[in-house]
C-alpha cells in the first residue's frame, strides 16, 4: 500500500513537478500514471523510493514514511524499471540480473562476486520467465536489442521479490509491438507474485489496455483517477492539453517529448 498525503515537489529551478498529491494505491494494483512529458509522472514514482524527496507533504510505503532514515529498509523492497533500461552494458546478462540483489548480499561477497547458488538459479528462472535462454547468460548486455535489454531489466527488478515495482516510462524507447510484449510481461509477472506496479506511460491506448487503474497527470496535478473504461477521449484531450501548454513554456527533453507529441497527435 502506497499513500501520498499532500505531497509536493518543487525543483530548484522553480518547476513544480508534483502539486499537492493525495493518493492511495492498494497492494497488487497495476496503476498507470498517464501524462505527457513534464507532467510529473517520473517524480511521483521517484517519491516512493526517495530518489526524489518531497518539498512538503508525506509519502508512505507500507505504513513506513519515506525519509532518508528509512531508505535502507524500504529500497530493497522496491524495484525500478527505467526508460533507458540502465543495464551495465559491458557486464554479462547474468551479472546484470544479480546486481539487482546487491542490497541482500554482504559487501565482502559482493566485492568478490560470490553470489549464492540459489540466487544464481533464481536469476536463471527469472531470465527464462522473461523469455531469454541459456545462451544469453554470459553475453554482454550491449549485444542485446532494446526490447531484450528491458526484459533483462525486468528480471533484475524481480530478483529480490519486491512488493512494488516502479516502471518509469518502461516502453518509451521501444516500438509499439515490443512495447506491448514488455507491458504484458510486466503485468503478468506482477500478477503472479502479487506485486504492486506503478507505471508511467504517455500512450493512452497502452494505458487502457494494461492498467487496473489510470491516474491522469497534468502539470503535477491529478486530473483523472479511475478505471481504464472511464478514460474517454475528452479526458485524454485534457491530459495532453495541459501538457502541450507546459511544453511550450518548459525546456523539452528530446526523445520523451517527441514520443509525447506523437501520442497526443494520435488522439
Amino acid at each position: 500500500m502506497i499513500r501520498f498525503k499532500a505531497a509536493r515537489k518543487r525543483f530548484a529551478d522553480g518547476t513544480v513537478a508534483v502539486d499537492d498529491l493525495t493518493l492511495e494505491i492498494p497492494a497488487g494494483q497495476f496503476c498507470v500514471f498517464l501524462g505527457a512529458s513534464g507532467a510529473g509522472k517520473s517524480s511521483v514514482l521517484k517519491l516512493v523510493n526517495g530518489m526524489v524527496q518531497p518539498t512538503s507533504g508525506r509519502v508512505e510505503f507500507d505504513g513506513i514514511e519515506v525519509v532518508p532514515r528509512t531508505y535502507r529498509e524500504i529500497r530493497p523492497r522496491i524495484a525500478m524499471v527505467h526508460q533507458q533500461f540502465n543495464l551495465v552494458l559491458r557486464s554479462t546478462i547474468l551479472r546484470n540480473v544479480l546486481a539487482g540483489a546487491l542490497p541482500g548480499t554482504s559487501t565482502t561477497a559482493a566485492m568478490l562476486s560470490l553470489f549464492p547458488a540459489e540466487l544464481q538459479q533464481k536469476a536463471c528462472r527469472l531470465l527464462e520467465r522473461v523469455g531469454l535462454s541459456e545462451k544469453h547468460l554470459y553475453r554482454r548486455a550491449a549485444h542485446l536489442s532494446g526490447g531484450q535489454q528491458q526484459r533483462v531489466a525486468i528480471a533484475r527488478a524481480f530478483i529480490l521479490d519486491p512488493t512494488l515495482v516502479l516502471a518509469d516510462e518502461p516502453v518509451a524507447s521501444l516500438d509499439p509491438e515490443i512495447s506491448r510484449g514488455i507491458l504484458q510481461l510486466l503485468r503478468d509477472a506482477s500478477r503472479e507474485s502479487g506485486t504492486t506496479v506503478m507505471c508511467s506511460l504517455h500512450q493512452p491506448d497502452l494505458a487502457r489496455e494494461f492498467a487496473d487503474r489510470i491516474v491522469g497527470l497534468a502539470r503535477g496535478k491529478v486530473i483523472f483517477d479511475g478505471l481504464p473504461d472511464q478514460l474517454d477521449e475528452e479526458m485524454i484531450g485534457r491530459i495532453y492539453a495541459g501538457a502541450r501548454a507546459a511544453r511550450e513554456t518548459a525546456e523539452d527533453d528530446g526523445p520523451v517529448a517527441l514520443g509525447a507529441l506523437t501520442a497526443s497527435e494520435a488522439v
Partner: protein
Amino acid sequence: MNNDTTTPKPAAEWQLRSVYSTRLFALLAVGAVLLAISAHRSEVDKGLADSGRAIVAVVRGKPESSRVARGWLRFLSQAFPLVIASYEPIENPEEFNPDTLPAFAYRDTKYPIKDTMGDVVRYVDAVVKPIGYLTYVGGLLVQTIEIAIWGTILSVLISIPLAYFGAAGYTPNKFSYNVARAICNMNRAIPELIAALVFAVAYGQGAWAGILALGVHTSGFLGKFFADDIENAAKGPQEALASTGANKLKVLRYAVLPQVMPQFLAYGQYILERNVRSATVLGIVGAGGIGVELNERWKQFDYGHVSTILLAIFITVFILEQIAQRVRARLIGE
C-alpha cells in the same frame, strides 16, 4: 503554437557566423608575439640557427667548421659499433687455466683498449666474453623492469583510495574530496627524480627509493584519471542499483567498474611503460637498475656502451608494449 509577439525572420535572413572571427586573428597575433619573445629567451632561435649551420657545413663537406656537426660526429663515430663484449684482464698469466673459462669466452693476449677518442692506447692479456656486456645490460634491464613493476603496483595501490575519495558522488564529503584531489596534485607535481633523492635520504640509495619515487609520483596521475573516469561513468546504471538500496561500494563495483575497466587498464599499461623509461633515468640518481650503468658509462665517454644500453632500452619498451597490448585485448575482450 504561435504565441510570439514578433514575427519570426525567414531563414534567408538568419545571421550566419564567420568561421574565422577577428578575435581569433587577434589571439593568433598575440600568441605569435609571445612565442617570438619566448623563443629568444629559451634559445630556440640560437638552436635553430646552429642546426642550420651544421646542415650547411655537412652538405658543403666541411663538418669541422660547425660546432654542432663536430659534436654529432664525435658521438656517432664512437657510438658505433655497439660494444657488446666484456673482458677481464688476466693478472697472473702463469696461473691461467683454459679449462675454467665460461662458455663462449676466450683468451685474447692482445685485446685492444681504446681511449675516449676511439684510438687504441694499449693491448692487454684478457679473458673476453663475446656477449658479456650484452648479458650484463640484460640483467640490469630486468632489474629496471622489476623496479618499474613494483612502482606501478604501488601506484595502483595508492591511487585506488585516492580515486574513491576524489570522485564526486562517492567521496563522503567535500573535505575528503579536496584532500584526495590535493594529494593527487601534489604527487604529480613532485618530479620522480626529486622524489627519489628525498627517499634516498631516508632509505639510502637503491631500488626501494626508486620504487617509492615511481609509485608516489605516478599515483598522482592514476588517482586523478581513475577519479575523473568514475565521475564521468554513465549515471543510469548507477541510479538503477542505488535505487534498490545497494551501498556506494556495491554500486561502484557493479555499475561503475565494468564501465571504466578498459580505461583503467589502458592507464595502468601506460604507467607501467612510462615507469620502465623513468626507472632508467632514476638510476642516474642511484636508484638502481640500468641507469646507474648508463650514468657511469656516459661520464667515461664510453659512447659505444651507451648506445648499446639505449638500444636495449628501446627494444625492451617495444616488447613490453606488444605484451601489454595483447594482455589488454585479452582482458577487455570484445
